[in-house]
């Protein structure tokens, strides 16, 4: 399995029965989890074709999450850039302030279908943790969220929210005490609790069928965008941009566009402080294919296969791996992956706040930055849609710290 430079068209009918997106994906997990993953894959195949399940999901996304989310023309930001027209797909106005809830509502419904009575989840910045705690509170499911001790320190308001929503937040003290270790610890819990527990993974990562399930639940973003563009503009956009950490908002936005080959898709990874190892979180840009958290995909590893430390100012992008379907889209050339450094993203945050009255999440700001750069080079009648994956209120303290503002 070496990386191939031969490009073939990306097939939207992935993964195959073994969970492969081309050569990527699969299942690299302990035998103990295989039966639960098989059960999950079987149950998911059933609900995918089940009208009752899909109707219930659609109703909850409308009444509880607030979908469809608006497609918003960022006129002043477009004028500020002086080129193409920038539109925002407003996932930031969803309940809990980000796209994460699209997935947690779907997976909670699946949990109930499987007759499991306990939910576990991992979280980095806390957005997926809050979205899981919210969905679990809605359905009356007990919820345990694993979170690195270091992230708990950095994200106190989200930790408090999860507790208010009735979730138990378990600090993870192993390894680097961040998202990566929280995933390890959630997997370890699941190893001992697979009989009665569902693990709600928050991104398009992990062993099959998680990358597929999370992508499908997030694909409502791309489907709505296509419908809204057709209705409003009478055509599809020229370019779609999304930020990529694990890659769930990007997968949800890109997937429905994959078959529309004339729409340019751009994924933006966290460029951090520099292109030196340890200074960024851009496995698709600087990493190599390898195994992490149960799947084969691009990853930041050293020459021995040990996972590297990574950095991004945005906790949601601060992850050394990426979903296997993104690796597949990279290899097939369907999506163009690039990276954006911390300070460029911060400038985009400022420009969006000042020109649009919208504070995007720091994760999202990476995508906005790339869209602004592209808009400057493009004609006025071209359309660039950015997946505005989350709102920036959660980042206020971090932004203050980065700007050297001291509240005393």
């Amino acid at each position, binding site marked *: 399995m070496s990386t191939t430079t031969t490009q073939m068209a990306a097939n939207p009918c992935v993964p195959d029965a073994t969970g492969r997106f081309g050569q990527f994906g699969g299942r*690299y997990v*302990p*035998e103990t989890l295989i*039966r639960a993953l098989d059960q999950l894959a079987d149950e998911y195949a059933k609900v995918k074709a089940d009208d009752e399940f899909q109707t219930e999901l659609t109703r909850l996304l409308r009444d509880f999450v607030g979908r469809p989310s608006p497609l918003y023309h960022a006129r002043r930001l477009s004028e500020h850039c002086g080129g193409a027209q920038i539109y925002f797909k407003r996932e930031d106005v969803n309940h809990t302030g980000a796209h994460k809830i699209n997935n947690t509502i779907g997976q909670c419904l699946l949990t109930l279908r499987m007759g499991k009575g306990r939910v576990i989840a991992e979280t980095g910045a806390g957005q997926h943790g809050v979205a899981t705690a919210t969905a679990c509170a809605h359905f009356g499911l007990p919820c345990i969220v694993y979170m690195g001790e270091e992230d708990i320190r950095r994200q106190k308001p989200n930790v408090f929210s999860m507790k208010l929503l009735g979730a138990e937040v378990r600090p993870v003290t*192993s390894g680097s005490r961040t998202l990566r270790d929280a995933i390890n610890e959630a997997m370890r819990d699941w190893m001992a609790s697979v009989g009665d527990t569902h693990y709600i993974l928050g991104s398009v990562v992990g062993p099959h069928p998680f990358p597929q399930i999370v992508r499908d639940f997030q694909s409502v973003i791309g489907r709505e965008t296509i419908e809204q563009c057709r209705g409003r503009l009478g055509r599809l956009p020229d370019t779609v941009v999304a930020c990529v950490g694990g890659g769930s908002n990007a997968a949800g936005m890109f997937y429905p566009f994959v078959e529309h080959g004339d729409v340019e898709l751009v994924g933006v990874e966290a460029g951090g402080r520099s292109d030196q190892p340890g200074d960024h979180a851009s496995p698709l840009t600087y990493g190599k294919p390898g*195994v992490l958290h149960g799947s084969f995909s691009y990853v930041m590893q050293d020459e021995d296969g040990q996972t590297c430390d990574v950095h991004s100012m945005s906790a949601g992008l601060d992850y050394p791996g990426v979903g296997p379907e993104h690796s597949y889209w990279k290899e097939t050339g369907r999506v163009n992956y690039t990276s954006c450094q911390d300070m460029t993203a911060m400038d985009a945050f400022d420009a969006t706040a000042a020109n649009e009255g919208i504070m995007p999440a720091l994760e999202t700001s990476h995508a906005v930055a790339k869209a602004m750069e592209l808009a400057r080079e493009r004609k006025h009648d071209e359309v660039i849609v950015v997946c505005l994956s989350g709102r920036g209120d959660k980042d206020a303290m971090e932004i203050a710290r980065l700007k050297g503002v001291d509240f005393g």
Partner: protein
Amino acid sequence: MSAVDQLFEKLRSEHQKALMPFVTAGDPDVEFTQAVLKEIVGRGAHLCEVGIPYSDPIADGPVIQASYTRALKHKIKLDPILEMLGRATTEINAPVVTMVSYAIVYRHGLEAYCDDVRAAGVDGLIVPDLPVEESPQLARICADRQLSLIQLVTPTTPRERALKICETSSGFVYYVSVTGITGERTELPPDIVENVGWLRQQTSLPICIGFGINKPEHVKLLAPVADGLIVGSAIVRRIAEAAKRPRDTVLREVGDYVTDLLAAF
């Protein structure tokens, strides 16, 4: 035929069972790991399982995780581990298998990893995150080099699947006693004896039981149904003391513990 196959053939003809201690390579350094291997084989351990430290070991409990973290904190690399194993295998008369994550095997290169461990005198691999579906390529490469690729069966493995795993496993089948991660347990699930008994009727491969075993009582319960028992966290926990106490004392205590376990067989 690998050295692991030969060992179990011999033990079976002598109606003996194997004790297989697990040791983390490089905790606290490779010199001590080498000394531990020599000590435990000197005390009568039949086979050694050497854990290659990995940054993200999802199947491991706190004790083995912590040993990996300690080893990696000292920047342990694969090459010095293999060099140490090369020295250790010349001074001990027992097969050695490595417990290694597929992340490491893949990055090193499947063939290169197998060539290098073989050159170091290693006789088999346990790759806990490589389920049977993903294993054919590595299984072929191992078979070409007389390396056993030992696969795992767990309490959650459906019986039909267990048969498939037995067909592709070589050396022995690793029966995981508990649904969960590695680590010492006070009590083991009551249905182990029955489950292993069932598996025994399905395969002629040796069956070794691991996860949770730490007491002579466990040995007494399980030795009659298994071909061998694997003891990990209880050994690693004792080795962890080496950082704080005289190494000779720790070595002797690990050795005494192995003697106690063997006495219960």
